[in-house]
């Protein structure tokens, strides 16, 4: 089994499609549809990369990302953002949050998978 990827996405269809693509590439995908669930998974599993929707129930993407960056162990986990928000990078930069890639919906799942691959490679190389 390959790298551990945490997919945090509340839309079940998008979640399903992205998961199917990732699994086809031999990643092990952990699913969460809200921030709280994601934190629980993070506590249990070792996660190599995270795909995060910014618009989430219970604990939204921003708050989640902030707590993630503040955490000593998890702060280095690379994060790919998928969101319906226009120009999410600006907002994140403004908040001083660093992320690997940003994808605005509707995105091509294949592109996300490719970004996952390259990001994992670059982190491994670093």
């Amino acid at each position, binding site marked *: 089994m390959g790298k551990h990827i945490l997919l945090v996405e509340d839309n079940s269809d998008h979640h399903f499609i992205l998961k199917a693509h990732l699994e086809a590439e031999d990643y092990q995908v952990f699913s969460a549809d809200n921030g709280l669930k994601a934190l629980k998974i993070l506590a249990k599993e070792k996660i190599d990369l995270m795909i995060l929707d910014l618009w989430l129930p219970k604990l939204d993407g921003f708050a989640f990302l902030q707590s993630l960056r503040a955490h000593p162990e998890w702060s280095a986990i690379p994060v790919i953002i998928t969101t319906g928000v226009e120009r999410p990078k600006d907002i994140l930069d403004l908040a001083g949050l660093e992320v690997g890639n940003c994808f605005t919906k*509707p995105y091509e799942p294949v592109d996300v998978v490719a970004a996952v691959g390259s990001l994992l490679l670059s982190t491994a190389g670093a």
Partner: protein
Amino acid sequence: MKRIAAIFCLVALVLTALYAIAFHLATKRLEKEEARTSANLQLFFNEQTNAAKLYFEAFVLGKSSAKSLTEFRLIHPGLFPTRYSELGIARQSRFAALPPGLKAQNTRLSGNGSLWIASRWVVDGNKLWLETLGSKAPWPRPVEVAGAPIQGLASAVPQEWLRPNDPKIGLALAPAASNDLHSRTMTLPGVADSETSPQLVLKYKIGFWTHLLIWFLALGLVMGFLRILRNRGPKRGKREIQLEEELAYLSRTYQNLSKTLRMERQKVESILNSAPDGIFTCSPSGTITTWNRSMEALTGIPSETAIGKHYRESLHIYSSGGQLLSDTFSLSFVQNKKLNLFECSLEVLNQGDGSASLFFPVSLGAAPVMLPDGTVEEVVVTVKDIRPQKAAERLRQDMQAMITHDLRSPLAAMLGYAGLVANAKTCKNEADAQKYLESLMRVGKEMLMLINNLLDWSCIEEGALFFQKESLAVAPILQETVESLGVLGKARQVSIVLDGEANDLWALTDGEKLKQILNNLITNAVKFEPPGGVVTVHAAEEGDKIRISISDHGPGIPFEDREKLFQKFSNLRKSESSGTGLGLYIVKTLTDALDGRIEVKSEAGHGSTFSVILPAMEKVEAHTQQLSLLSLVSPVSNPAN
């Protein structure tokens, strides 16, 4: 009336006085002439016939006296009461002889100079009257008889007539003859002692010209008096009268003007107070002079408080950039003379009553009230509250964003599923493809419903939603809807169960709209039902109504959110589920239009039940017969199959 009577009395008084004066003057003049009048009496007595004759000789001097003499009497007290004896009267020239056969003739006196008059004598009581004939209005006036006997008269008297001895009157000297008129006359006791002189009576009339003169004078005086009466009061000249008329005209004009002005003022006030926008006026320096009702409503500041103060004490105007305009606003306005509508923010300052100051967007315009020389007298400022406009704009923007997002999201999902099918890595076998395609169909249906809802919503907004109500069996509609949503249930691991005695139920409704209502309600229920749960669709008759209930075991709806439930764009659980927030709004609108109603039973944490109540119909026989006929002809099309 009183005044007229008073004037009449006054006029009568004046006339009388004038007449008296005029008469007095005339009489004076006559007296003057009478003073020169003399008369002589001679009585002759014929002893054979026992007749007496009186000869009277008088000189009336003066033209007017002679003319106006109408009566001439000789009065001698103590004569016999013989009625009268005729004496001849003749007009004679002066000192002419008495003509024979004296007879009464015309007694009118005329001519200038002395007259020789024979008159008749009248014995009335103890007076002997000698009067001229034809006298009109007797007015006894004794005249002293004086003067010497007329010379030459005796010669004219016939010889047989005796002349009395007394040269003065002659009567007393005649011998008395009893029973005879003359003799009785002569035997009067009063005559013998001759204590009283016989009297000559002269009567005068006032002449025509004298009368005319008197009346003319009187008329002149009356007219003068009337004029005095009329012009009583302060004396006014022509100029003064003209001025007075002008003043009256001006006063009338002023009254009309002030009336018009009052009306105009009322009109302006009504217009101001009925205007939906706030309007106030201020002097160029900024002191408020008018503050209409909408302004009161907008700011909460009553006009009594606002008027008379500088507007900065009540309002601060900020540009859309947040710059305070109040200080430069009026100045720039006065300079530019015109200010078009522009959007800005208004801060209503609290008036020291502790209320919080308000801050809201407005559209502001101003217009000057200018004097003919171009100086600004007042500034009219209109203030339009654009909060509702802004809110509508925001709602529209939100909605646009939501619709875009909500349409894009399922479309992306559909493409995503299609991509999974197309990708050999993700689609390894037919079962995978089946799975992906089912999901694709489900998302497609969701999207279709979304688009239907949007279309219906725009129809509702435009009032262009049409219905075709007919008697319909409820069961097939329920069945069809539940079947079509099976994919959705399967994907969410929720089973949709239809129960109840739906088979015999008929409703008067629009089939397509009912399907849409049910679609929305069941989709919602499936969305909120936890995986592995059951959504129940139950139909039952309830009097003359049909109740279709859809129950789930989801989180339920908090009581405080019930009211918002059926409003448009009120997605209560936005963060947990997608949707435009139009579904329930459309359900409610359609149900109302179908003469039905909708009920919600829900408890937080224990699921919700939405019930649609529609008017029921008796089973329509004709329709059923037609159906059975169809089933006979073509058993395949029997809906039971």
